[in-house]
């Protein structure tokens, strides 16, 4: 393997390790959950992308190219925001009263989308019926 490719693979491995470590340190150091959510979803995703591209390059040069790593990168980059959204939503709904006090005003008639249904929508009317029934 020539030196240039070896250097690039090594650099990608080191960058991946640093970003994974930064993501986990951020999850320890940041003060509350909504802030902590940023570290694993951004730094860790970048780190795993770097590590997987190091693997792609290594095996492509070694003559054993496969698309598995690209598949994993694609899957992780697709699912990281979904996971973060779900965690944030579950967190807000778990402490609904406090969240409604803390969240800034939306500046329109209807409130935050995760708590209030859109005004006039069928789902909103359905939600009203559910509320009336208790």
């Amino acid at each position, binding site marked *: 393997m020539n030196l240039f490719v070896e250097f690039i693979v*090594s650099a990608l491995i080191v960058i991946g390790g640093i970003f994974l470590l930064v*993501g986990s340190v951020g*999850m320890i150091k940041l003060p509350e959950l909504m802030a*902590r959510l940023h570290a694993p979803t951004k730094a*860790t995703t970048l780190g795993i992308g770097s590590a997987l591209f*190091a693997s792609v390059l290594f095996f492509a040069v070694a003559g054993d190219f496969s698309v598995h790593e690209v598949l994993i990168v694609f899957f992780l980059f697709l699912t990281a925001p*979904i996971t973060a959204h*779900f965690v944030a939503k*579950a967190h807000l709904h778990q402490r609904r009263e406090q969240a409604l006090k803390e969240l800034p005003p939306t500046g329109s008639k209807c409130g935050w989308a995760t708590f209030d249904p859109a005004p006039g929508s069928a789902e909103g009317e359905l939600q009203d019926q559910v509320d009336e029934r208790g």
Partner: protein
Amino acid sequence: MIHYALMFGFFAVSVALLLNLWRLAKGPTVMDRVIAVDTMVINAIALIIYYGIFHGTTVYFEAALLFAMFGFISTVAYCRFILRGDVIE
């Protein structure tokens, strides 16, 4: 050169896993523990990938892909359980 980079990578990812474990044990709320497990899965994938480069074999990628899928599915299932009290309605 790749050998030293891999040694650094193993070290960094192992420390990251320990930090995740700390958050998993400490985490004041349930969702803290959920994101700790989710990050642990991603770090485990990185560890598997580095191990594959270390041994020069592509056998471990199926394991990494399975880890990625099951990590995502378990996180989403747990969040839905917290949100709705049920996974599949």
